């Protein structure tokens, strides 16, 4: 159990390639933190710097208020679960789990006791004498977790540990990991590129892009108040739709898109950081905020669309369409109550209470957080 602080931590390869750029994080004791971002964003590099497997090019790393920049991995009191589990294939599950304790020269009886206790939590009791080759992917993953657990570390580091599992098992193990975190009451730092994993598991999520920390917040806040266009699009599945639009001050602030304009509701305009009379913006609308158009809903912005693809998933209907105001296909998640077919012309709308506005030039959000 420990808090962890990263102060301007950077990783520079070959003199000029910045894999991680001035990363600042303050991770509290017992938190479940998730690093998320696309491939090459520096999330695994950051985790490896925390683990001591990569040297830190700049900045300071503190574990429990102790500077650990140059401390070897084995002395940092942290455990890591690797993407491919990194089990020792020639050793039994018991030997794998007890290896770190053996290195610490703990008495055999104590090692056995700790391994048995971890195996019980992870339901690995009957596999203790097997070798990793005779285990399924899920079991190997649990052995890797058990190996980390027996050391009773201050911090657990997990580097995409579920990515080698099939989709169904991944969902199961996701829940199991969250339960394990609650049971162990230890700081967890988890790396993934899957935003669903991040949203469902993390107490707080660090969204990274090109070595830069874009936002570090709770899942709810990342969804509701993304700092910029990247975070807005990265969090949420299917991802946020982006339109090119305009804000014009004519009495109140109006949203112009295509040939239609609508007055922004006060819940949005009150939070809006917009001083001029006219501005190009990116308008973000999440698929789940689209509805079939209802003339009675005064706050809804209507769009007449021709469907290019329709996906029925039972609980929802995903409707894809093109818009002259958007570069990519737009997707709307609609209620399955009305049947929609490809090439249908229908009217959909989105509620102006639920829109996201981003500066066209900086791509930063123009809306202050709700409640601030």
């Amino acid at each position: 159990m420990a808090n962890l602080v990263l102060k301007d931590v950077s990783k520079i390869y070959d003199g000029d390639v910045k894999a991680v750029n001035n990363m600042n994080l303050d991770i509290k004791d017992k938190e479940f933190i998730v690093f998320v971002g696309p491939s090459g964003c520096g999330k695994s590099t950051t985790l490896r710097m925390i683990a001591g497997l990569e040297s830190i090019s700049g900045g300071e790393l503190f574990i429990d208020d102790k500077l650990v920049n140059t401390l070897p991995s084995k002395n940092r009191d942290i455990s890591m679960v690797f993407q491919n589990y990194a089990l020792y294939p020639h050793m039994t599950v018991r030997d794998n789990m007890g290896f770190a304790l053996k290195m610490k020269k703990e008495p055999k009886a104590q090692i056995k006791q700790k391994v048995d206790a971890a195996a019980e939590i992870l339901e690995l009791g009957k596999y203790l004498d097997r070798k990793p080759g005779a285990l399924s992917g899920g079991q190997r993953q649990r052995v890797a977790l058990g190996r980390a657990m027996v050391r009773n570390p201050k911090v657990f580091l997990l580097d995409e540990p579920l990515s080698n599992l099939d989709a169904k098992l991944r969902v199961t193990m996701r829940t199991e990991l969250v339960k394990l975190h609650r049971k162990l009451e230890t700081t967890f730092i988890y790396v993934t590129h899957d935003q669903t994993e991040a949203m469902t598991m993390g107490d707080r999520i660090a969204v990274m892009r090109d070595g830069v920390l874009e936002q570090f917040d709770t899942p709810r806040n990342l969804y509701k108040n993304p700092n910029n266009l990247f975070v807005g699009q990265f969090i949420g599945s299917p991802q946020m739709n982006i339109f090119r639009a305009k804000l014009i001050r004519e009495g109140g602030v109006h949203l112009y898109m295509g040939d239609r304009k609508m007055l922004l509701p006060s819940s949005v305009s009150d939070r809006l950081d917009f001083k001029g009379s006219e501005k190009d913006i990116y308008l973000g609308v999440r698929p789940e905020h689209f509805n079939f158009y209802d003339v009675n809903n005064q706050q809804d912005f209507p769009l007449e669309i021709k469907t290019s693809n329709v996906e029925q998933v039972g609980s929802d209907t995903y409707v894809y369409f093109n818009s002259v105001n958007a570069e990519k296909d737009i997707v709307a998640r609609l209620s399955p109550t009305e049947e929609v077919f490809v090439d249908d012309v229908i009217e959909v709308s989105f509620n102006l209470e639920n829109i996201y506005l981003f500066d066209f030039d900086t791509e930063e959000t123009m809306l202050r957080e709700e409640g601030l």
Partner: protein
Amino acid sequence: MHSTEVDTLPQKKRKTSLAIDFKKFWNWRSIILLIVNLAVAGIVLFPLIYAISMSLKAPSEVYQQDASFFPEAPVFSNYIDVFKTAPIATYIKNSLIVAVAITFSQIITSIFAAFSFHFLKFKGSSVIFAVILATMMIPGESVIVSQYIMVSGWGWVDSLRVLIIPFMTSALGIFLFRQALHSFPAEIYESARMDGCSNIRFIITILIPLLRPTIGALAVQSFLGAWNMFMWPLLVTNADEYRTVQIGVSMLNSVDSQSMVLMLAGVVICMVPSLLIFIFGQKNMIKGLTAGSVKG
């Protein structure tokens, strides 16, 4: 922790029926292949069979004009007499000491070197590795004189160490292990480091057991190389006390003690250890030499 997954263990392969499909097996293609294989094996094994056959003949039978290929009455005493004629036991002992010492030392030094090249990052590692590989291109005969001058200057001539120390490491071994490490997951090393495992401990506890096929390949290669060494022992040893079996056998053909059957009995005796090593190690040798060559 609650688990809902189905434990999907690798299923044991079903035993295949022992009944052979003769029709499928005995087609013309297989018959021709079998004949070609037998012919090639016969040509390759002919010297060996000839040596065994001759070594079992009585000395008088060798020069008979109508002598058959196989001995009329096998004479095993040649195998006893060869030990009386020359100190073959000492030669075999020396060869065993030299071959075993070289094999072990080459395995150890090659693993340590390959580990350093693969896992430890240091400046100039690729240049040093290239230099080591370059030594494989230099024929041993071209440096044998300068090596002799060096070891004789140190007073090492006529000793077992002069037969062992110059061969304690192997560029081929380093290359083989480094190739094997290319397919070795780096995470295992990192995991071991985090577990508090030192580099030496990692090599002994984790790397060596996992590199067994490559170790087997190098062991066979090194042992056979050391056992069959001829030029170097001939040059640096004079006393019977330090001679190896290859030199000893060649001495059986000297002018004053010429006996074809004894010499061939000696040849057969000195072939036995290398044949045994090859028979038991050939699977590993093939596995190790091809390791890392294909994605798997």
